[in-house]
C-alpha cells in the first residue's frame, strides 16, 4: 500500500462502517448473552439460525412477492416462534446435564440448519436488498452508505427496546429472575421454563435482525454468519459473557477496532497487515484484555461460596 495523505472524511467513513458492523456483532452478541444467562452455554447455532432467518426473509420477498417490511416483520415473528420451538424440542431434553452436552446439541443444530439451508435454497449466493437502499448519505465531507446508517439505527432501536423490556416490564423482570436464580424465581411464581423459552425466542429474533442486516453487506450465503458469529462470541466475551451492556459495547468496539486496523494499514502503518489477519488480531486483542481482566470488561468476577 502506498501511504496516502491523511483524510479526515475517510477516517470518519471507516468509523461509521465499523459501527455498522459492530452493531451487527452487538445484536448477535446480545443473543448469545441472553442464552448464556438462561441456559449457561454458548449457542453455536446462533449464526446459522440467523442465516436461516435471512433466507426466509429473502424467500418471502423473492419467491412470494412480499414487500420488504412485511417480510421483515414476518421473519421476526417466525424466528421468535422458531427460537421457542428450538428450546422446547431440542434444548429442554438435555438441560440440567453436563454443559458440554448442550454445547454439542447446539453444534448438531448448527450442522443441521446449515445443511437445511443448502438443501432448500442451494448453496449459491443470493442477493437480499437493503431496506435502506443503496444510496449514499453525505454529512459534511463524509460520505456513507445509507445501509450502514440504517443498520446502526436499527441496532440502537433494538437495544433500546430490549432495555425497556428488561427494565420496565413484568415479563422482563421475570426473564431476569429466571436467568439469575431459577429456583427462587419458581418459588415466587415465575414460570421458569417458559421464561427460558422466551429467552431463546428473543435471541432468535435478535439473530434474525442481525442476519437480515448482514446479508446486504456480505451477500446472502449459507455460511455468511460463520465469521460474524466468531466476532459476536469474541464481543460477548470481551464485554463479559453475562453482561448485555458489555455485549453492546464489546460489539461496537470490535467493529471499530477492525475497521481502524484496515484504515491504518492503508496508510502503511502496518505493512504486515492483511485482511485475512483481522480475525486472529481481533482475537489476540481480546486475549490480552482477558488476561488482564479475566471476566471481561463489564463482567463481575465470579465469587464462590464454599
Amino acid at each position, binding site marked *: 500500500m502506498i501511504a496516502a495523505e491523511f483524510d479526515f472524511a475517510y477516517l470518519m467513513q471507516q468509523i461509521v462502517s465499523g459501527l455498522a458492523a459492530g452493531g451487527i456483532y452487538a445484536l448477535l452478541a446480545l443473543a448469545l448473552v441472553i442464552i*448464556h444467562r438462561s441456559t449457561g452455554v*454458548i449457542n453455536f447455532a446462533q449464526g446459522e439460525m440467523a442465516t436461516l432467518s435471512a433466507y426466509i426473509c429473502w424467500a418471502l420477498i423473492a419467491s412470494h412477492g412480499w414487500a420488504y417490511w412485511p417480510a421483515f416483520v414476518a421473519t421476526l415473528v417466525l424466528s421468535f416462534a422458531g427460537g421457542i420451538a428450538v428450546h422446547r424440542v*431440542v434444548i429442554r*431434553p*438435555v438441560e440440567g*446435564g*453436563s454443559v*458440554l*452436552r448442550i*454445547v*454439542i*446439541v447446539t*453444534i*448438531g*443444530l*448448527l*450442522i*443441521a*440448519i*446449515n*445443511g*437445511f*439451508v*443448502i*438443501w*432448500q435454497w*442451494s*448453496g449459491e449466493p443470493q442477493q437480499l436488498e437493503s431496506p435502506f437502499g443503496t444510496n449514499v448519505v453525505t454529512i459534511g465531507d463524509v460520505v456513507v452508505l445509507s445501509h450502514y446508517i440504517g443498520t446502526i439505527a436499527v441496532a440502537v432501536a433494538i437495544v433500546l427496546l430490549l432495555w425497556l423490556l428488561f427494565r420496565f416490564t413484568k415479563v422482563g423482570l421475570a426473564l431476569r429472575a429466571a436467568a439469575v436464580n431459577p429456583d427462587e424465581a419458581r418459588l415466587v411464581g415465575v414460570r421458569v421454563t417458559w421464561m427460558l423459552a422466551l429467552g431463546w425466542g428473543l435471541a432468535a429474533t435478535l439473530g434474525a435482525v442481525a442476519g437480515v442486516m448482514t446479508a446486504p453487506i456480505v451477500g446472502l450465503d449459507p455460511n455468511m454468519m460463520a465469521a460474524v458469529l*466468531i466476532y459476536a*462470541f*469474541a464481543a460477548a*466475551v470481551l464485554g463479559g*459473557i453475562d453482561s448485555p451492556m458489555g455485549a453492546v459495547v464489546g460489539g461496537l468496539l470490535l467493529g471499530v477496532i477492525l475497521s481502524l486496523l484496515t484504515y491504518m494499514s492503508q496508510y502503511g502503518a502496518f505493512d*504486515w497487515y492483511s485482511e*485475512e*489477519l483481522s*480475525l*486472529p488480531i481481533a*482475537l*489476540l486483542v*481480546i*486475549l490480552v484484555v*482477558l*488476561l488482564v481482566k*479475566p*471476566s*471481561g470488561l463489564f463482567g463481575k468476577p*465470579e465469587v*464462590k461460596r*464454599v
Partner: protein
Amino acid sequence: MSPRTQRTIGFVAFAGLVALVVVLPSFVSDFKAQQYAYVAIYLIALLGLNILTGYTGQISLGHGAFMAIGGYTTAILMAGNEPSLACSACDGPIGGGLKDVWTLPIAAVVAGLVGLAFGLPALRLSGLYLALATFAVAVAFPSAVKRFEGFTGGGQGINLSEEPELTGVSGVTILGKSLTFYEWLYYLSWSIALVAFAVAWLVVRGRAGRAFRAVRDSETAAVSSGVSLARYKTLAFGISAAYAGLAGGLFAIANTFVNPDTFPIALSIFLLIGIVVGGLGGLSGLVFGAIFIAFLPQWAQGQDLGALLPNFLVQGGDIGGWFFKGTGAPGGPAIVYGVVLILLMFVLPNGVGGLFRRAGQVISRRRPSRGG
C-alpha cells in the same frame, strides 16, 4: 462391582481390543485399513483432549491447532524446507530427511511444550473464556502458517510423498512381511494408539489423575486439599497437547501432505464431539467416539434423506412436496449428521462410556454381593 472385578473386565476388554486390532486387516480391504488408521489417530487425539476436558474440566476448542503443530513438526522434519517448496531465498536451519516414525516423538514433545506454554496464561481463564482463548489459537494458526511461509510452505503446504525413502508410501517390509502403505499405516497408528491408551490409563488412575478430577469437581476443594491448581492445570494442558501433537504427526504421515486446510477449525469441533460421544471422563468409550467422528460423515453422505422420510412427505401432498425436496439434494447429509448428533445426545447423556458404566451397574446389581 468391586474395583478389582472392574479392573479385570477392563483388562479383558483391552486385550480384546488388541486382538481385534491385530486380526482386523485380514478381513478388510486396503482402503478400509486406511480408514481404520484414521480411527486410531483420532483416538490418540481424543485421549489427550479427554484428559484436559473430561478429567480436568478445562474446555478446549482449539485442539486442532495442537494437532497442526505436531503435523507441521513431522512434515518439516521429514521434508525440510527445500527451496522448491517454500521460497528460493530461505535457507532454514532444518534440513529435513528424518524418517517418518522418528519424527513422531519430536512432534509430541514440541506440541507438549507449546501446550505447557499455553497452559500458563490459560490459568487465568476458566470456562467459556478459556474456550474462546483456545478457539482463538485454532483460528489464528492457519494465518500464522501462511505468514511463516519459508518454514511451512505457506498455503501450498508440504508434500511428504516426494520423499518415498522416508515414508512407507511404496510399501514396507517388517520382520520379513511386506505391507502396503495403508497396512503399514494401520499397524503403526494402532500400535501407537494402544500404547497411548495404556499410558493415559496409568496417568488418570494415578496421583495426577486424582488431582485432575479434584480440580474438575471443585477448584476450591482441590486447593484446600493441597492440590496445586497451577501445576496440574498446566500439566493437563501439556499432556493433552502432546497427545494431540502425536496424533497430528501421524495425521501428516497418513495424509502424506500438510497445508493450512489439513487442520481446519472444524477439526477442533469434531474432537470435542468425539469426547462427548465417547463419554467425558472415561477412556474406553473414546474408541467409539473416534469411530463416530471418522465414519459418521461418510455414513451420512451415503444416506438419502428422501429415503429416510416417509414417502408421502417427499412425493405426495403440496406441502410435503414443497417442503421436503426429493432425493439426493445437497445439504441432506449435513441434516442427517446434525440430527443424529442431537438424537445421540438425547439417548446417551453420558456418551458411550456412560452406557458401559450403566451396563456394569445393572450387571453387578443382579449378582448377589458377598459380604454386604
